[in-house]
């Protein structure tokens, strides 16, 4: 494993988004890993529609909340094609599910994986390289006040409540950390990202991890 790795360096990570006052982090996390999986396959990097997942993943609660694994399951079972963000823009509220003609460009997933990597963050690093960016559900209560640096305290592995995307890790310094992408805009944290200490399941980073494949 390299000492430092970040999928952003491979130009397969789209810009940081802002979920606004919509509790749709779960949908953003799913769409973002699919965008990266698509780009890792050598296809053009483009943004797909989080609003489509918010409106159409019927077992989830739209802007009132949902589960990334439930959304991945829905995408895999129904083979729903994700259309581009420009076709189905983000509205920051739950709406009616729109369907598009087959001629409209979109991508469906071939499958997904979801595991707990608690006490296995070394294996998780391998999977980040093998699968692409990973969805994680974490405790982000203290992130309301986060400015920067490596989170090591003030969160719990037992209270997970927010879906994010792990794009990389860095073990070059004194404290190894995960590089985590959030969906609260690029003015939050470190250009929209947060760093979380590795190896102690800080904030529950390793408890609920998933990836989608295209």
């Amino acid at each position, binding site marked *: 494993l390299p000492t430092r790795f970040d999928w952003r360096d491979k130009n397969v990570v789209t810009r940081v988004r802002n979920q606004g*006052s919509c509790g749709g982090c779960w949908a953003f996390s799913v769409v973002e890993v699919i965008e990266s999986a698509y780009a890792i396959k050598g296809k053009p990097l483009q943004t797909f529609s989080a609003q489509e997942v918010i409106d159409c993943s019927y077992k989830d609660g739209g802007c009132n909340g949902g589960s990334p694994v439930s959304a991945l399951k829905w995408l895999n079972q129904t083979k729903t094609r994700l259309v581009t963000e420009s076709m189905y823009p983000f509205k920051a509220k739950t709406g009616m599910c729109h369907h598009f003609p087959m001629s409209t460009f979109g991508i469906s997933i071939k499958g997904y994986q979801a*595991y707990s990597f608690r006490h296995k963050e070394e294996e998780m690093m391998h999977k980040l390289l093998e699968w692409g960016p990973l969805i994680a559900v974490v405790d*982000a209560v203290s992130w309301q006040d986060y400015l920067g640096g490596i989170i090591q305290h003030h969160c719990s592995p037992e209270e997970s409540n927010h879906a994010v995307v792990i794009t990389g890790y860095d073990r070059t310094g004194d404290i190894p950390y995960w590089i985590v992408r959030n969906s609260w805009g690029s003015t939050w944290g470190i250009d929209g990202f947060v760093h979380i200490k590795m190896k102690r399941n800080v904030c529950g980073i390793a408890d609920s991890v998933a990836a989608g494949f295209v």
Partner: protein
Amino acid sequence: SPGRLGSAHQYKAFQESIQRQHALNSLPSDLLVEKGSATYGINQFSDLAPELFRATYLCSKPSELPKYKPFDSEVKRLH
């Protein structure tokens, strides 16, 4: 002042945020303050009460997932 920040609720939330941020930046002495530790302060959420922040932005739940076992995963993939 409350007028500059908006409503009295926002002003109160902002004041409480500053106190909370101070607490977050002050680690107990028994915890080692490691180099590179996170810092907390005023950002775009500082005028939100914690309850409102949680209700608006923290809307996902973890799934009960199997523990990753390298061998199982490989068998599943080959199958």
